[in-house]
């Protein structure tokens, strides 16, 4: 017979013994297994006989005293908390604090980084995050101005350090005659322009431009590309006249050629794409009433730039800014190129007369 069956039979006999049935009577029920079961059941009876001791009262008392004393000690060691924290909470908290300190430290350290340095990407990312979180249109423009000043300061430092590095910066484009040559400046950075670029820049002078170029060590800045910056301004129209709108504190002038979609109403949302000709002076290129997202035309890159005047794109631009807090020259720049018509649909338009300039806007942005 298998041991499993014997084990089962033994268990049945043990249960009968447990309720006080005599051994002989149990074995009588299994005569053919009696010889096998008897020694096992006798062993069980002896094993049971081993368990005779009363728990000592003194031992119980000593154990209880120790038990309560240790409990009191542990209770003192663990003050009650209002809520239970998981066991790994301190570790988690330390890790979170460490990460926060590291990120904050890196963000601080990146504040003075220059283009080409490891932390510069983080600096720009932090700025992008700040822009994304900015509130109204005026606040966003003020923030962009702050960041533009940083870019200009970076270029200045790179020039002083004699570094060679591709750069981007922005500012109002101005021109002055020095020693018979045109000297250009934007964001406080002076630079010269090659022939074709100089001709194009004439159409943008006085406007707020985005510039891309290279710092060539002590030789200064070499500009490779320059565009008028397009500002997407969206918000509630606070007031309007024939000549201008105030959109959430931003003054936007309306050239006669500005494209208008819908009928603007005070108190209703409106979105405008404009160029900037003064600190708080914007010229609308197109507007869409009733919606907060900017118009499709001209197409623009949200953060920066569109109407382009490069060496290959030629157009006619006339900027005749009127009143502006920043004194600037009134300039007219003219270039001729048939290819400019091909991008007319996407182009930005500046000026408020019939000869208004057209920036040859393109969806591709800068050519690298």
């Amino acid at each position, binding site marked *: 017979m298998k*041991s*499993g069956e*014997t*084990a*089962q039979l*033994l*268990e049945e006999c*043990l249960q009968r*013994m*447990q*309720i*006080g*049935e*005599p051994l002989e009577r149990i074995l009588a029920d299994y005569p053919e297994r009696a010889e096998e079961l008897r*020694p*096992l059941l*006798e*062993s*069980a*009876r*002896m*094993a*049971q*006989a*081993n*368990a*005779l*001791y*009363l*728990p*000592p009262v003194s*031992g*119980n008392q*000593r*154990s*209880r005293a*120790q*038990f*309560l004393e*240790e*409990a*009191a000690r*542990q*209770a003192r060691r*663990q003050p*009650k908390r209002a809520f239970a924290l998981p066991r790994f909470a301190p570790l988690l908290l330390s890790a979170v604090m460490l990460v926060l300190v590291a990120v904050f430290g890196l963000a601080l350290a990146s504040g003075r980084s220059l283009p080409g340095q490891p932390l510069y990407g983080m600096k720009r990312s932090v700025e992008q995050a700040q822009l994304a979180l900015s509130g109204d249109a005026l606040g966003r423009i003020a923030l962009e101005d702050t960041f533009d000043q940083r870019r200009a300061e970076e270029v200045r430092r790179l020039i002083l350090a004699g570094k060679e590095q591709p750069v981007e910066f922005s500012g109002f484009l101005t021109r002055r005659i020095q020693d018979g040559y045109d000297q250009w400046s934007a964001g406080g950075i002076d630079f010269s322009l090659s022939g074709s670029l100089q001709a194009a820049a004439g159409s943008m002078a006085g406007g707020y431009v985005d510039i891309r170029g290279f710092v060539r060590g002590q030789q200064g800045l070499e500009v490779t590309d320059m565009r008028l910056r397009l500002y997407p301004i969206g918000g509630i129209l606070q007031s309007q006249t024939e000549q201008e709108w105030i959109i959430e504190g931003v003054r936007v002038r309306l050239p006669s050629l500005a494209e208008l979609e819908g009928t603007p109403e005070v108190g209703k949302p409106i979105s405008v794409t404009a160029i900037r000709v003064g600190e708080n002076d914007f010229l609308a290129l197109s507007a869409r009433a009733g919606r907060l997202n900017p118009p499709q035309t001209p197409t623009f890159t949200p953060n920066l730039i569109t109407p382009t005047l490069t060496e290959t794109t030629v157009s006619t631009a006339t900027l005749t800014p009127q009143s502006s807090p920043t004194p600037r020259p009134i300039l007219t720049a003219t270039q001729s190129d048939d290819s400019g018509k091909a991008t007319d649909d996407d182009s930005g338009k500046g000026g408020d007369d019939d000869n208004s300039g057209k920036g040859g806007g393109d969806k591709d942005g800068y050519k690298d």
Partner: protein
Amino acid sequence: MSNFCLWTGEMVRIAGWTFPNTRQRPFHSGWKYNIPSTENSLMTGTPPTVQNRQAQEAAELLRRAKQFEPQALTAIHDALYPQVFRYVSYRVDDPRTCEDITAEVFLRLLKALQKEDLTIDNLRAWLLGTAHHLVQDFYRKSYRHPTTPIEHHEHLPNGHNPAEEAEKNATRHQIRGALRQLTDEQQHVLALRFSQELSVHETARVMQKSVEAVKVLQYRALAALRRQLERGA
């Protein structure tokens, strides 16, 4: 006095609930257990509705014990001390060592109350499991540092004839000697079945084995014990 009554009441409840399936069976001419009368009386049959209420109260008692409330801790200690002690004394000769091991089991319970998911249902299994490990540790150390065993047990039940007790002690000593020769698991299963009167199902739960495995283990343990006793004789 009122505190004493409260403790007693809680001991009644926890003992009645914690071991509902292991109440002391009525022994007539069979095995005799030296169970304290109070403890024995606590383990009589209880209607299911009363058991539910007792279960809730026992769970509440455990919750309070987890907050180190002395009254709840005392109730749990006093209700379970005899069972843990009986288990340990089944496997260890020296009564002082039995007391030390039993006390250590309860000290470890304090840490477990904070860290482990102990319920009123698995509390006794935890205590007996911990007692088993401490007994193992004790023998492991004893093998490294052998000591002279104490032959005479100082905690003899009162009211017995010394000559009769001496004879019983001799028999017990022989049984213990034989038990010591068994494997650790065999000793464990016999201690649970015969010192605690656990059913085979409860034993399986404490040992974390199947019922069938426990039955086979028990069969082998008794067969081995028989061989050892015959060899000793």
